[in-house]
């Protein structure tokens, strides 16, 4: 028997480590640009500002990473942010102490995510449409609960949690929350078999199912998790602005998805890392800060985020196409059918 041709598939061009290196370089470049722009850039105050401004997005990016790895998507998170603030504020006005109201809000988030998961896994509907529907539904519920009311009177400790920093350090409380969550997600995703199963689902739902992975219930739990974390983000946002309005969090889904894709997660599923996404969070935070220091108004930053999103997908796609062309040239034959899956243009 002739030995099968054994060759390493790992090409440096597409490897994940390389993507993260790219993000580090980008981050360093932005930091250098920042120091050039303003001498306040490296101040403790500025650090606290630039990090706390993206913490809601940052924590929502964690479950979104896992959801996108399985090949689904959750567009409804920004509305859950609004709904969570609305429920929290309303419960507080009704006289319920916040420490009691917060768990209730988290449960509401879980229920919302459960509805998403149920419709996706049980009814077999595409996650895109389901969460587009609940994007409207949750925002609508926030509207119904709050109406045009703005709740802006909160206990001091709560608002302090939203934008304050620990003692005299430049570390916001919310950064600690994110750090703890990110550590847990990192451990679960890369260190436990639950994470392994999630990646297996993203790479091949059939093979995962045939291997006894509870595909439907895992996907369902991820949506629930996403709902709970979005509710937590809603609480943080309400604290940071010390306000609960029915439009809290509008437009945030775009940023969350951008951060996840910028972090190297494959929109077609099956690939992604938590460290990459964490790096992307800071790239985004610093970029926004640098733009602000450069005098670019916050309204234009949408363009930056949008461009970042499109390029973070185009670049790896180009790399893949280049790699495929290279492989073809080298081996002089067509690539295996499976490798083209990423090129599909479908939703």
């Amino acid at each position, binding site marked *: 028997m002739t030995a*099968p041709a054994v060759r390493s598939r790992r090409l440096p061009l597409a490897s994940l480590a390389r993507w993260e290196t790219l993000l580090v370089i980008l981050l360093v470049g932005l930091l250098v640009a920042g120091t050039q722009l303003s001498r306040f850039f490296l101040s403790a105050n500025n650090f606290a500002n630039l990090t706390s401004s993206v913490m809601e997005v940052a924590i929502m990016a964690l479950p979104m990473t896992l959801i996108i790895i399985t090949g689904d998507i959750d567009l409804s998170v920004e509305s859950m942010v609004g709904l969570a603030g609305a429920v929290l504020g309303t419960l507080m006005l009704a006289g319920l102490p916040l420490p009691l109201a917060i768990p209730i809000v988290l449960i509401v988030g879980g229920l919302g995510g459960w509805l998403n998961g149920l419709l996706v896994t049980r009814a077999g509907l595409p996650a895109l449409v389901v969460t587009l529907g609940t994007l409207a539904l949750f925002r609508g519920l926030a509207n119904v609960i709050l109406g045009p009311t703005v709740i802006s009177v909160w206990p001091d400790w709560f608002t302090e949690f939203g934008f304050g920093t620990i003692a005299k350090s430049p570390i916001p409380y919310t950064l600690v929350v994110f750090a703890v969550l990110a550590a847990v997600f990192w451990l679960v995703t890369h*260190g436990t*078999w639950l994470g392994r199963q999630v990646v297996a689902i993203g790479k*091949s739902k059939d*093979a995962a199912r*045939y291997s006894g992975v509870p595909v439907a219930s895992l996907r369902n739990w991820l949506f629930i998790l996403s709902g709970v974390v979005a509710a937590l983000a809603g609480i943080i946002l309400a604290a940071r602005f010390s306000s609960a309005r029915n439009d809290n969090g509008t437009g945030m889904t775009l940023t969350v998805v951008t951060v996840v894709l910028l972090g190297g997660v494959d929109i077609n599923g*099956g690939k992604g890392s938590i460290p990459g996404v964490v790096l992307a969070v800071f790239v985004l935070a610093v970029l926004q800060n640098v733009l602000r220091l450069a005098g670019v108004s916050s309204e234009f930053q949408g363009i930056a985020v949008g461009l970042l999103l499109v390029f973070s997908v185009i670049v790896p796609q180009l790399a893949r196409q280049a790699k495929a062309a290279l492989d073809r040239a080298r081996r002089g034959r067509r690539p295996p059918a499976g490798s083209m899956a990423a090129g599909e243009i479908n939703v």
Partner: protein
Amino acid sequence: MTPRLELTGISKRFAATAALTDVALRLLPGEIHALVGENGAGKSTLVKTIAGVHQPDAGEIRLDGERITIPSPAAARAMRIAVVHQEPRLFPDLSVAENIFLIAPPTDRLHTIAWREMRRRAANLFEQLDVKMDVSAPVRGLSMADQQLIEIAKALSLDARVLILDEPTASLSTHEVERLFTIVRRTKERGVGVLFVSHRLDEVFALCDRATVFRDGRHVITAPTSELTTASLVRHMVGREVSLFPKEASTLGEPLLEVRGLSDAAGFRDVSFTVRAGEILGLAGLVGAGRTEIARVLFGIESRTAGEVLLDGKPVNFRSPSEALRAGIAYVPEDRHQDGLVLDFSIANNITLPILPRLFPRLLLRARVEDEVARSFSEPLRVRATGVGQAVSALSGGNQQKVVIAKWLATKPRVLILDEPTRGVDIGAKVEVHRIVSELAATGLAIVMISSDLPEVLAMSDRILVLHEGRVAAEIARSDASEERVMFAATGQVEAAAAGAGHGG
């Protein structure tokens, strides 16, 4: 007479396996020419070559004497080569008429689609076929047979010079088959060259003028059907010379898996069998006979509609693969790439995927433990790789299959179902897979082996259950088994003789 289609010296390789080696075929105008052979003989590769799906590595194709290349399916259509595939490829949301005329619809003066004319022509085609069909209804929801007829109507609309029918009768009833034959004969009278690919030998004799037999990707014989008999045809098809590793005799233990009167929604009916510890039960039959469907029900992927399954004498009904694997059933699926492996995963990650919760009850993965477990299951199977950290996509087919088997052995099963375990695997690896399976049986596993490879079934099985159209056609003991007997039963030739063979309990 100039042949409609003439192929000479056609060869085609896929990676390590040679699908076609120097084959030739002459299709005359006005003849119906059968192409027969076992599964894997190279028939569908040839069909796909003519259809423009595959490009031959060597050889020459002539259409009406003119040398051609067929770069794409669209080009084949343009040359009026019509192919009716086994699996219809239609647009479920479009109407019957539109599926026929999508590329070249009749147009009116404004060059817009003339729907009425389209429907009229479509209705005409079905009238020629003597079939009732609502041509304005969408294809979604139509039966397989109806979809097949649409493909044939499509071929007629092309005014084809060459018509290729790839296993067209696989999903048709007897009546529908008769109707199809009438249509094909009428087509032939118009000077079309018809290539009829089939497993069913009775159909070959009923319909075809000449027959060509392929075996292992090579041309064996072409002869007028009048000079052939079923027996001689079968002899040409079988008798492959393959080195095999026959199962070693082992003592059979208690019945482990009992299946009684099992049926599902569409694939099979009233199937009963028993497998003992240490026994290999071969499940033979043609593609579509319902063998894989049985395995899928046993493994909890599909649900049954009737019957019962006993494991260790206790009735079981699995609703998911995870339940089945916890109970000790393992299934090596037919489609390695789709269902068997996560191709991007390493060997170790694939092997441990089903047992992760068992291996690491405290959630945390430990790479060293994982690699050790993976090695302990892959090394005895002699998986050739740089290490268990290598991605399975970089392995050869045979080694991939060994990884799938290792994966399931790691679950410590008591019943192992193998679905086409050596398909697409080179000879050396095949012998090794046989050795492994034989050794597993010796350790007391009950093994069900689904295979279309007759020599393999004969060499490996203690008993052979032959399925024909979803029912048990024969049960043959190892000592009585021969390729001819299995082939006859699988093609429905000895239904009368085998009628009583589907035993009770």
